[in-house]
C-alpha cells in the first residue's frame, strides 16, 4: 500500500557527461510519495538532465537509481512511462498535424485495435475522458492539434502523461508555456497527485512559484547538489545565493536615471497587422531603451516583428526618420541600421550548422569588403573575433558549429552579430530567455553602453523585473493596445504594471 513519506525514487551518485561537458556530477536525490520536490538552479546546473535520465530520455554514464525499491534503468521514455514515471518536457511535446486523441494515445494505438482496424471513435471518446479528468475544457479530441494554441497543446501533453496514470510525475519548466488558467490546472493536478500519494518533481525558473507549491527544494549548481531545504526554511535570498554561488550584486540592471533625447528615430504610424495590432502608434527616441511588456499573447511580439518589416503591415507604416524610409521588408530595415533579435533563437536568429564565425559575419558582408565586391577574410575574422573576445563566448574554436554551444553562449553570438554591425536601432525580443544570470548581467551592461553611445533599443520581454530594471520608458500592452505608459523617472510600481497587463 502506497504510503505518504515512503521513498518512491532514489538516485545515488548519478553522473552524466556529454563529451567533455559534465552535466550531472555525483548527485544524490530522494523523492518521497505525497511530496512535491522542487529543483532549482541556473541553466547548466543539471536539473533538466537529471529528470530526463530518471524519465529514460537520456542514459546516465554511471550511478544508480531505485524505483519502488528495485533497480531502475529505463532505456526509453516509453519504458519509463509504462512503469509509471511520466515527464512533461520543456519543449513542445505534441505533434501538431495529428488529432488530439492521437497525441494523447501516441504509441498506444494497438489498445484500440479490433482485429486489424483501429477504432477512432473509441479513441476519441477515451481521450475526451482523460481531458475531463484533469479539468481541461473546450478541446475536441477529434480535431487536429494545430487548431489549438501553445497553451492548449501543453495541456493536451499533460493529459497524455496523466492518461498513463504515473506514480512519479516530472514537470520540467512547463509553467512558462501556460497562462494563469493553464497554471491553475497544472497546480491542481500536481496537488491532487500528491494527495493520492503520488510524487512530483517540479522544475521551474520561478522561485516564487516553487516556494508556493513545493514541500522541499533541492538547489543545484554546476551539476552538483548544493543544498536541500524544507518548506519551513524557505528563504528567497538564501536560495538565490546558493544558486549562483556568489554574492549577487542586486544592481545588475542599470542604476542610472539618464534620460533619452527628444529626437524620434523610429515611428509606427497607426499600423495594423493581420493579427493583434489595430492602428497602433509608437515612437522610439534616440538613446532610449523602450520596454514593451504584457502577457504573452498581447501582441508585443507581433509589434517587434512589424517594426522590423517581418509582419505584413496592411495599413499605416513604420518609418525610420533619419533616412525617411518606410520599413516594409527586413532587408530595408537592415540596410537602414536596424537590427532584430528574435525570441525563437534557434529557429530564427542563428544558423545552427554554421560556425560561430559564419554567424557573426552574416551581418558584415558589406562592411568587410576591401575592393569592390570582394570580401577580405582577414577583415571578417577580425569582425567575428572581436565579438568573441568582447563577449567572452566560450567555445573550443571559433569554427565550431553554433549548435554545440550552450543557450547563453548562443545568445552571445546573436548579440555579437548585431553589435559588430553597429546597428542604430535594435529590437530585442526576449533577449535573456534561457540565459544564465551571469550572462544576463553582461548583456544588460552591453545594452546600457549601447544606449550611452546613442543607440536606440526596444526590449520586448515577458519578465517584468527585466523591463523595470532596464527601460527608460515602459509600455504595457493588452490585446493589441497600449494599456499603460510608465516612465523610469517616476519609478515603476509593480501593482500598477500588473493591473495594466490583465
Amino acid at each position: 500500500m502506497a504510503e505518504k513519506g515512503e521513498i518512491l525514487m532514489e538516485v545515488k551518485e548519478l553522473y552524466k557527461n556529454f563529451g567533455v561537458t559534465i552535466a550531472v556530477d555525483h548527485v544524490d536525490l530522494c523523492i518521497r510519495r505525497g511530496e512535491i520536490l522542487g529543483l532549482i538552479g541556473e541553466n547548466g546546473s543539471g536539473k533538466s538532465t537529471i529528470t530526463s535520465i530518471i524519465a529514460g530520455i537520456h542514459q546516465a554514464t554511471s550511478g544508480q537509481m531505485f524505483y519502488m525499491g528495485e533497480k531502475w534503468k529505463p532505456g526509453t521514455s516509453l519504458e519509463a512511462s509504462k512503469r509509471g514515471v511520466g515527464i512533461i518536457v520543456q519543449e513542445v511535446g505534441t505533434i501538431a498535424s495529428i488529432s488530439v486523441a492521437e497525441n494523447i494515445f501516441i504509441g498506444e494505438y494497438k489498445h484500440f485495435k479490433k482485429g486489424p482496424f483501429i477504432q477512432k471513435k473509441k479513441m476519441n471518446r477515451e481521450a475526451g475522458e482523460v481531458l475531463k479528468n484533469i479539468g481541461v475544457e473546450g478541446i475536441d479530441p477529434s480535431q487536429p492539434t494545430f487548431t489549438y494554441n501553445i497553451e492548449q497543446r501543453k495541456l493536451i501533453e499533460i493529459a497524455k502523461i496523466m492518461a498513463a496514470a504515473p506514480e512519479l510525475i516530472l514537470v520540467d519548466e512547463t509553467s512558462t508555456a501556460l497562462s494563469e488558467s493553464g497554471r491553475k490546472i497544472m497546480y491542481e493536478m500536481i496537488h491532487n497527485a500528491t494527495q493520492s500519494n503520488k510524487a512530483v518533481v517540479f522544475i521551474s525558473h520561478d522561485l516564487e512559484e516553487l516556494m508556493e507549491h513545493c514541500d522541499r527544494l533541492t538547489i543545484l549548481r554546476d551539476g552538483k547538489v548544493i543544498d536541500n531545504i524544507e518548506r519551513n526554511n524557505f528563504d528567497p535570498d538564501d536560495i538565490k545565493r546558493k544558486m549562483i554561488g556568489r554574492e549577487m550584486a542586486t544592481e545588475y540592471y542599470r542604476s542610472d536615471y539618464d534620460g533619452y533625447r527628444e529626437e524620434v528615430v523610429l515611428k509606427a504610424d497607426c499600423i495594423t497587422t493581420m493579427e493583434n495590432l489595430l492602428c497602433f502608434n509608437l515612437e522610439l527616441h534616440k538613446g532610449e531603451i523602450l520596454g514593451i511588456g504584457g502577457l504573452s499573447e498581447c501582441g508585443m511580439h507581433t509589434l517587434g516583428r512589424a517594426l522590423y518589416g517581418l509582419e505584413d503591415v496592411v495599413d499605416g507604416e513604420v518609418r525610420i526618420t533619419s533616412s525617411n524610409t518606410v520599413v516594409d521588408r527586413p532587408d530595408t530595415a537592415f540596410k537602414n541600421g536596424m537590427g532584430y533579435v528574435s525570441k525563437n533563437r534557434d529557429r530564427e536568429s542563428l544558423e545552427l550548422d554554421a560556425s560561430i564565425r559564419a554567424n557573426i559575419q552574416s551581418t558584415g558582408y558589406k562592411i568587410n569588403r576591401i575592393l569592390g565586391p570582394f570580401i577580405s577574410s582577414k577583415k571578417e575574422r577580425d569582425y567575428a573575433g572581436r565579438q568573441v573576445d568582447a563577449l567572452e563566448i566560450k567555445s573550443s574554436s571559433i569554427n565550431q558549429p553554433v549548435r554545440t554551444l550552450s543557450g547563453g553562449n548562443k545568445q552571445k553570438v546573436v548579440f555579437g552579430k548585431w553589435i559588430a554591425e553597429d546597428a542604430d536601432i535594435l529590437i530585442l525580443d526576449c533577449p535573456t530567455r534561457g540565459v544564465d544570470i551571469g550572462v544576463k548581467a553582461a548583456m544588460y551592461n552591453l545594452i546600457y553602453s549601447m544606449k550611452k553611445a546613442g543607440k536606440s533599443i526596444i526590449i520586448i520581454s515577458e519578465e517584468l523585473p527585466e523591463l523595470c530594471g532596464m527601460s527608460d520608458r515602459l509600455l504595457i500592452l493588452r490585446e493589441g493596445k497600449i494599456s499603460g505608459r510608465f516612465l523610469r523617472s517616476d519609478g515603476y510600481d509593480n501593482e500598477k504594471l500588473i493591473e495594466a497587463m490583465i
Partner: protein
Amino acid sequence: MKKNKIYNTALSAAKAISIPIIIWVIFEILDRAVTGLGVINTVADVKTLLRNLITSYAFAMAINANLSGGRMDLSIGGQMYVGVIFGGTLALNLGWGGIGILLCAMFIGGLCGLLIGELFIHIRILPMVLGLGMTLVFECICFAINNQQGVTFFGKAGTEILSSVSFIIIVALLLLAVTTFLFQYSSYGYKLRAIQGSQKLASDAGINIFSNCVFCYIIAGVLAGCAGVFETAYKGGLTPVLGMGSSNVVFTNMFPMVLGIWIGSFINNTSLGILVGSLSIRILIIGLSRLGLGTSTQNLLLFSMFLVFMIINTNKSKIAYRRARKKRIALAKKTRADMAALEEMPALQN
C-alpha cells in the same frame, strides 16, 4: 447531425468525381471539333484506358508512399524493372500465368523495396541521393542478366488475363481497399502520420520510425512491381535501359499523384483520390492524343497544364489570405476614421 454528415460526404464525392467528368466533357467537345473523333470511340479504347489507368494508379501510389514522408525516391522505376524482369521471367519459367507473374513481380518489387529501405535506415544518406545511386544499380542488374533481353509477355500463355477488363477492375479495387486500410485504419497508418508530424516525438513515444520507414519502401516496391506488370502486358515486353532512363516513370506519374492528393483531401481518402486523379489524367492524355498533334506537343501541353495546376494549388491559400487582408484593411481604415473623429471631440479632462 447524421443527415448533415451524409450530405457532406455525398457532396465531396460529387466534387471529386466531377473532375474526370469535366475533363472528359471538355475534350469530347474539343476532339470532335478538331478531328471528329471522340475521347472514347470503341470498346478497345475503354480497355486501353483501364490498362493505362491501373499502371498510373499503382505508380502514383508507389511514389506517394515515400513522398508523403518527405522522401523522393527516384529508384522506383528501377525497382519496377527488376520486379517485372526477374519476377516475370521466374513466373514464366515456372509456367505460371498472368496472376503468377503479377504476384512474383510484386514480391520481387517488395524485396527491392526492402533492400533499399534497409540501406536507407542504416546508412542514412539523403533519400534522393540514395535513390539515384540505387537506380544505377537496379538498371545495371536488369541489363546484365538474360543477355539484356528483358522479358516478353506477348504471345506467352496465360498472360491474356493481364489485359482483361474485369481482372483489371478487380485488381484496382483490391489495391484501393488494401491501401485505404493501410493508410487510414491500420496501426501502421496511425504511426506513419505521427512520424510525418515529428520523427523525434514519435520515436520518443516508442514508435519505431525505422521499421515504419522500411515498410513504406516495401509498399512502394510492391506497387511498382504491380504497375510494371500491367505496363509490360500493355507494351508486350520490357527491355532494360541504362543511364537513369527508368526514372522517367516517376516524372510521368507526378501529375496523377499531385492531382490525386488534392482530390483526396476533399473526400478524406488519399488512395481513392489518387485513383480518381489518375483517371482524370488518363482521360486528359487520351483527349490530347485525339487532337492530331505530335507526341512532344502533347507532352508540352500536358506539362503546361501540370504547371498551371501546381501554381494554382500552391497559391490557393494566398487567395484566402488576400480576402482576409482586404477585410483587415477595411477595419483598419474604419478604426483610423473613428480615432480621428474622437480627437476632434472636445478634449475630456483626465
